[in-house]
């Protein structure tokens, strides 16, 4: 898929948080085959300078980074964080989160659109974390977003696709905009289902990081995304209410 002019081989974008160890994170990134990982900015603390070591490790992985504005509840915070991220990570990409509610971590769609407009005007290439709402999506596209990232379910819940009808409608409404399901994926079958709806990619984190074996799960997610994509392109059968024999009925022997 093409994200702001960059052709990306893997349709999986992987978060880097909540892994048991940096080594497992690194192996999971490799196992996933992803070309893009999300990162954040946090206060550098302690004599260990954890951020520097983390950053060195990420650079060694040879993947692109997509910095997020996680935890920002206001437009100002998000925009400032985006600027800091552009300097630190040397990329115009930003995963824009403007959180509206601490319990659901759902986007504040008003703040999101406002921040997206500011950042797009300032040359950022914005990946907005949004809902399946069409009217919000239209404003984001008007603001200059060339990608939309609706949630599947609230962040970290692992519930999969909470509103399939809404996601299907969004896909139908924006046939040309790359759509990436971001958040809520808990299982490979969820990721495959999103791809079968025609989504272009999946961004996930907790489902891999918190699996019993994150490395194996990273591979499983990558595989499922390929399967879902292939199925979408292959053209699935239509589900039907009535059963229909697969084995032909004609020519059946009379043995009764």
């Amino acid at each position, binding site marked *: 898929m093409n994200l702001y002019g960059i052709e990306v081989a893997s349709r999986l974008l992987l*978060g*880097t*948080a*909540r*892994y048991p160890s940096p080594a497992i*994170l690194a192996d999971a990134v490799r196992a996933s085959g992803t070309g893009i990982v*999300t*990162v*954040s*900015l*946090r*206060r*550098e*603390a302690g004599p260990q*300078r*954890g*951020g*520097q070591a*983390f*950053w060195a490790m*990420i650079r060694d992985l040879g993947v692109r980074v997509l*910095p*997020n504005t*996680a935890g920002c509840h206001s437009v*100002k915070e998000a925009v*400032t964080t985006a*600027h*800091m*991220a552009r*300097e*630190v*990570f040397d990329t115009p990409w930003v995963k824009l989160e403007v959180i509206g509610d601490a319990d659901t971590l759902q986007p504040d769609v008003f703040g999101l659109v406002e921040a997206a407009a500011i950042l797009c005007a300032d040359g950022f290439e914005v990946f907005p974390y949004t809902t399946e709402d069409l009217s919000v999506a239209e404003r984001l596209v008007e603001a200059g977003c060339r990608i939309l990232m609706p949630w599947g379910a609230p*962040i970290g819940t692992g519930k999969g696709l909470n509103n399939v009808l809404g996601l299907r409608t969004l896909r139908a409404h924006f046939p040309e905009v790359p759509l990436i399901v971001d958040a809520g994926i808990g299982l490979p079958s969820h990721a495959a289902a999103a791809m079968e709806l025609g989504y272009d990619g999946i961004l996930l*984190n*907790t489902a891999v990081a918190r699996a019993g074996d994150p490395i194996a799960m990273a591979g499983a997610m990558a595989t499922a995304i390929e399967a879902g994509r292939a199925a979408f392109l292959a053209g699935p059968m239509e589900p039907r209410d009535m059963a229909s024999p697969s084995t032909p009925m004609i020519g059946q022997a009379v043995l009764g």
Partner: protein
Amino acid sequence: MNVIVNGSPQELCATTLAQALDELGYGAATVASAVNGRFVRAVSRDITALADGDAIEIVAPMQGG
């Protein structure tokens, strides 16, 4: 000068943001910084004077989802 660095009060000799970062040991580190909630580009750290009570934020790459 008394400033707030990442939320903690600290006494520094520095009078510019660049000096402050040096003094705090971030000279070569990959960090971004803000003063009183406003982002300061790396190229402007030299010319960013600090005043008593300023709040400095210094952030670095971290895990994210």
